């Protein structure tokens, strides 16, 4: 993976050449395309319905109101429940936190075993794992339903957490495997000579040296699991639907008058967690998705 961070060479001397005008012109236009939805989302969510009906979606609100946000959070209805998106939010928290932690623990130990403690067949399993990540989830949905039902955790938080751990495994294992194999082998050998075992080396050497990659994995998993829709729909019940599913039910419900401001506030609320993760993590986010894309 090449360095994304810094352009090379000296800066061009003149600024207002035709080239530069075209260059920044295109980049500026594209930036409008990328920024527009975020802008519209925020603006719409701060208007009342009267203003939305008469005005234009690109205009900033004449009178700023936070009522749509309050309503989206605490009063919006899905079916007969009118306790707002807060329920979905807390469901998503309860799904995301354990899923992220468990999947990272499982995959990091696994990646470590694959690099430093190869056993017969380990590479075969790893190859299947990576290929498995390309298989459409749809083909595995029903067998997983059966497995979860047999285990008695179909429709529960535990079931969904297990599913997220399973489907997070390919990409995370790849991530950790690639990182651990970039660490100097001498470290591992020295620890072995000193009598450290499997877990000793993992906890005392690998773990402290790998904090950056754990952060990358964290970013990848928080956004991935928070944004999941399909698994939420298939493997949970309405009471524990994650935020994305509840959001879709609120906005695309056919009953009642559409409250666009509340809908956009709800959409914004759902997007807030990954957005915060994105803006806080900065370049690590790029590293995470790039690691996901480029095979080892």
């Amino acid at each position, binding site marked *: *993976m*090449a360095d*994304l961070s810094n*352009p*090379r*060479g000296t800066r061009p001397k003149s600024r207002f050449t035709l080239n530069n005008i075209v*260059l920044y012109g*295109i*980049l500026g236009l*594209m*930036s409008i395309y*990328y920024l*527009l939805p975020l802008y*519209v989302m925020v603006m*719409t969510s701060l208007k009342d319905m009267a203003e*939305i009906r008469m005005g*234009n*979606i690109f205009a900033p609100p004449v009178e700023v109101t936070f009522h749509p946000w309050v309503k989206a959070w605490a009063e919006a209805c899905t079916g007969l429940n009118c306790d707002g998106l807060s329920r979905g939010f807390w469901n998503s928290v309860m799904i995301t936190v354990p899923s992220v932690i468990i999947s990272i623990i499982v995959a990091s130990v*696994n990646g470590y*075993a694959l*690099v430093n*403690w*190869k*056993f017969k067949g*380990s590479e075969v*399993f*790893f190859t*299947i*794992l990576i*290929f*498995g990540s390309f*298989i*459409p*989830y*749809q*083909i*595995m*949905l*029903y*067998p997983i339903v059966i*497995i979860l039902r047999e285990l008695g955790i179909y429709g529960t938080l535990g079931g969904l957490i297990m599913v997220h751990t*399973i489907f997070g*495994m390919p990409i995370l294992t790849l991530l950790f495997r690639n990182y651990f194999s970039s660490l100097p082998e001498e470290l591992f050998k020295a620890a072995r000579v000193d009598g450290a075992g*499997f877990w000793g080396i993992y906890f005392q050497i690998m773990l402290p040296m790998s904090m950056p990659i754990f952060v990358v994995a964290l970013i990848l998993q928080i956004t991935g699991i928070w*944004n999941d*829709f*399909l698994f939420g729909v298939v493997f949970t019940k309405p009471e524990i639907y994650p935020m*994305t599913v509840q*959001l*879709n039910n609120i*906005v695309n419900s056919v009953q009642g008058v559409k409250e*666009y401001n509340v*809908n*956009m506030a709800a959409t914004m609320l759902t997007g807030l967690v*990954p957005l915060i993760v994105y*803006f806080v993590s900065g370049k690590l986010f*790029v590293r995470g998705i*790039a690691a996901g*894309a*480029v095979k080892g």
Partner: protein
Amino acid sequence: MSGQAKPVRLLRNLNAKIAAVPMILTTLVVFVGGTIWTVVYSFTDSKLLPRLRWVGLDQYERLWSTDLWNMAINNLLFFGVMSMTFTISIGFLLAVLMDQKIRFEDTFRTIMLYPFALSFIVTGLVWQWILDPGMGLQEVVRRMGWETFSFDPLHDADTVLYGLLIAGLWQGTGFTMCLMLAGLRGIDDDIWKAARVDGIPRWKTYLFVVVPMMRPVFITTLVLVAAGIIKLYDLVVAQTNGNPGNASQMPAMYVYRYMFTAQNLGQGFAASTMMLLSVLIVLIPWAYLEFGGKKRG
């Protein structure tokens, strides 16, 4: 690493094997087992519950004679080709622009990439709102004086896929740009120097030297995008839910419908097997090129 031979085979490296149990279970039970299970049951007449009563290829014959499925496949093909063409070309163009030693590179990248952090549900809902004919973009232009202006892709069967495309490209092109930019930055500086010494214009160098050199990056991106498109589900559910009149139905939605709401499991299994097949058609040539070729040098 596993060089030290010890007599007890199975117990050697025991901790590592314990650590790998989740991976082994996942690959064998879920990935391999689950896939085989679904493929096997796609040859049965399972309705409400899976049962092993063989009907040969009946489910597939019914699948391919169902209008809904054929529409879904056509939609996916059209959307897929459009999406791949635009994702790759926009992603590459943006990456080239970003590679011109520009100012505010970080700012531009942050702007282009943030949609990728958002879910397809959020993406679909926002664009549904912006493309709303009564209050969205169309209405704004009309109120500015151009009263016959018409831009309502989501409510016309002929254009709904373009509406999805606008949203899909918004979400994904920043990511493609990043992959391409990494590819561009990976090109040796000497290539550029040589091209300059030979007096080749920059655009020519890009087109005839850099693009061929970036072939692996293009292929990887294409495979990732293609695998993602075949699974396309959330975006459509949020933005159009298959409407108008199934003009934006997708295979993944067909599978969901037959597996979980229409209680016709056999159809769902057959449809998902077809999805697997289409992924394999993309994946196998790629894997062959990537890994198979290397071993033979």
